[in-house]
């Protein structure tokens, strides 16, 4: 049954990808890309990668799609016909694809338990992490503890993405009443429902943040979900009102604070006499030290990701609103 579901979902993915190639309406392309992300997240669930599915559904299907839609509002929604012939790209793609298919024949067969991937460090993570780190969710253990330094790097990458987007676009603070048409003004029902839904979303984000040690979830996902709540508010009520709730300036402070919180945990453990990000030093008992460390760094990641995603959305949204006025 699992193979059957896998096959059906992969077939749907292939059809969606093929359709994206031939569509000229970019709105439809972006919507199909959202479906593509949802479908790949479903495949991740089916392949046991629940944490990855969580991230893909919230980040890939949510934030990416919203950002692409915001860009389309600025750049126009139809693709013009390319003057170049498509023979050469097709040839390149067929040759590369053929080479890759030939390459897969040397790969270990799908799903066997004695594949090389499962033999090096993976058994240690699976067997030792529940006792060494003390968390049931192995993905969180590896992400936040064993590979904590790597995750710090990823957080810095996300932070620098915000710096890049803001230096390219900039956030324009607008005067109140400048754009009276801002937001989905005529949709009264949406206004009421959004007010009902947003607290639920924020509650769920907090649950994901602090339950990530025991189930799927963690700082990355929680940050994105919390940002999604504010994005919903900005979409329905307009950017100026969203700016009144969370100022863009505050977000920049928050993003830096999250990264610094993460790094300071590492420095604190060095001060205590351990290595950088050695959580065992944070408390008398190594297990509770691990617990404190993971909770604090996940909080740092969550704050940074929330602030970065929301300020990137602000940047795109204020561009779109400005072009709408002109």
């Amino acid at each position, binding site marked *: 049954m699992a193979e059957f579901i896998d096959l059906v979902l992969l077939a749907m993915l292939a059809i969606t990808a093929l359709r994206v190639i*031939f569509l000229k309406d970019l709105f439809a392309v972006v919507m199909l890309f959202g479906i593509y992300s949802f479908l790949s997240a479903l495949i991740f669930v089916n392949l046991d990668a629940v944490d990855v599915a969580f991230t893909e559904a919230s980040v890939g299907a949510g934030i990416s799609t919203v950002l692409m839609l915001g860009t389309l509002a600025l750049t126009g929604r139809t693709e013009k016909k390319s003057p170049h012939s498509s023979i050469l790209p097709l040839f390149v793609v067929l040759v590369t694809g053929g080479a890759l298919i030939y390459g897969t024949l040397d790969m270990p067969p799908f799903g066997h338990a004695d594949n090389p991937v499962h033999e090096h460090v993976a058994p240690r993570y699976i067997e030792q992490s529940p006792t060494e780190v003390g968390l049931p969710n192995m993905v969180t253990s590896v992400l936040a503890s064993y590979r904590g330094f790597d995750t710090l790097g990823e957080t810095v990458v996300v932070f620098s993405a915000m710096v890049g987007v803001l230096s390219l676009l900039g956030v324009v603070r607008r005067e109140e009443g400048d754009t009276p048409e801002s937001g989905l003004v005529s*949709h009264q029902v949406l206004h009421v429902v959004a007010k009902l839904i947003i607290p639920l979303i924020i509650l769920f984000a907090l649950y994901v943040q602090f339950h990530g040690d025991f189930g799927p979830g963690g700082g990355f996902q929680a940050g994105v979900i919390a940002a999604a709540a504010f994005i919903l508010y900005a979409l329905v009520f307009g950017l100026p009102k969203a700016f009144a709730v969370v100022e863009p300036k505050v977000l920049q402070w928050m993003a830096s604070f999250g990264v610094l919180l993460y790094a300071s945990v590492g420095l604190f453990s060095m001060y205590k006499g351990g290595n950088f990000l050695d959580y065992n030093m944070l408390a008398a008992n190594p297990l509770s030290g691990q617990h404190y460390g993971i909770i604090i760094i996940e909080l740092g990641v969550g704050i940074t990701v929330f602030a970065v995603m929301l300020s990137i959305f602000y940047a795109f949204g204020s561009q779109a609103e400005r072009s709408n006025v002109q």
Partner: protein
Amino acid sequence: MFIIDIISSILLLAGAFFGLSGAIGLFKFPDFFTRVHAASVTDSISALLIVGGLLLQTSFDLNTAKLMFILIFLMITSPTASHALAKSARHSGLLALAESKGKPQGKSTNG
């Protein structure tokens, strides 16, 4: 226990049936507004029935709460989304079949 399984099976199958009928309606109905009608109404009822059927399978733990959350969320958002969509379509000048008198729909932006 046995009774609960039977009830839950009936709910699940009914939910699947309504879902299928909604999908068929998406293809069969003549204009956009009737298609919204087909999709949104069956969406809500099949969500209610399937989640209800699954609720009977839980043993009143965290999963029950999560399913209740899903149910509430879907019951609020799904009709809202359909309403907003229909309203947007109406504002942009899409006509119902009776109004366009059988003429082909104006806003065909299919790529």
